[in-house]
């Protein structure tokens, strides 16, 4: 097992509550240190001014053309961009790695807002499959419905759908929060590893199937539980957190969270260990 030491140096990172462990030995993992921020350059990011606003009509643009133009506008310092006529195009708004106020006046197709880190996005329409896949930070709000694989593999940020979503919402998610105002389809939270999912309506079959960790809150009926998904006690701190989250999300503020069900991993499927195969041989 790796030898874990704790850095004695009181750093800015510690005061921010971030990880400060320094791993030595087999695992050479390094955590981001804001004290060294000046040595980092996050490629493709811009300092933008939220008060600098513009419209972009993408009606006659392909998705790559539209995304390049968004990038161009950010490079000019525009911090609020309103996208007109998205027309259900796929892969719009992907790979935005800085703060940005982005508004879509219409619906997106597949993979909208994928791999983003930081933008605040409002979509005044519907989104197709895999919206905000791999979101790392920021907030994405969808005013209507969403397709399947909503928030697949997100690592952080808030992803909010005011309508209903398809199957496999939050599949493989590793952090962050997904909030659904309506119903959710089958296999919601499938293989999720961290993070939280809140569904105010009903949810389909196999909820939380093979989830490793994380928490799912459901306000309506549950079609069926997936393998290793179990009920847990809804604590008062859970309820406080739910009320806060729903208020910030501008969704279900008056919802009675005390009646919600809380689902977590039973951890009966946890049959792995930390040993590499070669180490296992040594142990034997």
């Amino acid at each position: 097992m790796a030898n874990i030491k704790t850095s004695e140096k009181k750093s800015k990172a510690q005061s921010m509550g971030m990880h400060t462990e320094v791993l030595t030995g087999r695992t050479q993992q390094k955590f981001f240190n804001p004290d060294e921020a000046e040595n980092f350059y996050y490629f493709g990011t811009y300092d933008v001014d939220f008060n600098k606003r513009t419209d972009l009509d993408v009606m006659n643009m392909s998705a790559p053309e539209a995304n390049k133009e968004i990038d161009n506008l950010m490079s000019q310092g525009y911090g609020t961009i309103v996208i007109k006529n998205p027309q259900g195009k796929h892969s719009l708004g992907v790979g935005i790695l800085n703060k940005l106020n982005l508004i879509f006046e219409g619906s997106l197709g597949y993979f909208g807002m994928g791999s983003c880190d930081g933008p605040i996005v409002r979509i005044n329409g519907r989104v197709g499959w895999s919206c905000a896949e791999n979101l790392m930070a920021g907030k994405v709000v969808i005013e209507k419905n969403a397709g399947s694989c909503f928030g697949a593999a997100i690592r952080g940020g808030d992803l909010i759908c005011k309508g209903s979503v398809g199957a496999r919402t939050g599949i493989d998610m590793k952090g962050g929060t997904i909030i659904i105002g309506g119903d959710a389809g089958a296999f919601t939270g499938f293989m999720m590893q961290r993070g939280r999912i809140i569904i105010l309506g009903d949810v389909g079959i196999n909820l939380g199937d093979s989830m490793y960790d994380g928490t799912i809150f459901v306000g309506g009926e549950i079609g069926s539980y997936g393998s290793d998904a179990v009920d847990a006690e809804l604590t008062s701190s859970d309820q406080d957190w739910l009320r806060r989250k729903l208020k910030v999300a501008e969704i279900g503020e008056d919802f009675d969270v005390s009646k919600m069900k809380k689902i977590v991993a039973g951890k009966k499927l946890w049959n792995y260990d930390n040993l590499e195969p070669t180490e296992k041989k040594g142990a034997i």
Partner: protein
Amino acid sequence: MCGIAGLIHRGKSSNVGSELQGMLQALKHRGEDSTGYALYGDTDGKNFIMRFKVGENVGEGSSSVMEDVSVYDERKKIVDQTLAEMGAKIVKEERTLPYSLRYEIDFETKDLLDFSQRIESIPGVEILSMGKSLEVIKDLGNAKMVCDRYSLDKLVGTHAIGHARMATESGVDIKSAHPFWGYPFSDVSVVHNGQLTNYWNNRRVLENKGMRFMSECDSELIAVYIAQKMREGASLEEGMKDSLTGLDGVFTYFVATKDSLGMAKDTMAAKPLVLYESDDLVAMGSEEIAIRSVLPHEIDTYDPFDGEVKVWQI
């Protein structure tokens, strides 16, 4: 991958040929090995319309064997003779391409099984569709190519379903292209996106019950499966609901009849479908961009849930 699209106008007719072309062309990135249309046109309902082929398209990446046009002519001649022997009168005849024909037939029958078996006993001949309103047109290439080739853009009717195909488990040819006719039922057609894993088990059972398969495309099973259920007395919706457990695999499919259009989605919801519903129009497709081709303004759409079956009437 494949893409499917469909629309049904309620209470009126429209240019469904052109509309479906736009929807399928928007999905061409999902596959353009072949494209097929099942169009329900406005007719007087007196005669049967039989779309059939006497050969294959051997161009455009086809896996079919080249045949001389004289072979097609010979097959057509035998079809004409067989129709005459059965007392079926050809009212109108169109030969769009050397291998593809459209007949309007004056023929009185309620059971098309015997009729179809006799026509298809002629080697190299396959009925693509049979009905009083339905016309199945399918060929190699994308939606626009097929539409232009068969001049489908002017066809007026109430509803239509179509398919843009990426060939995966069977050949690039017309016989494996969608839509499939719900043999031997008049005016029944099916398109499918997905894979069926119990194809051979079901096929053996259905063949033992007298049903016929013209290809080795798993999607054909859906048409035959639904048709068999209807033969046994089930309604279209009952047959579709039964298919959710009878068919194994991942699928989203559409079925259309003379006056209705239905969709079914497997219990894992593994294949996409976006739906738009209003009082006078239902439009659906594998992706929203298909619907946008007929409804460019802002609309409310949604994904049907797992295991959902819906049927709409004209």
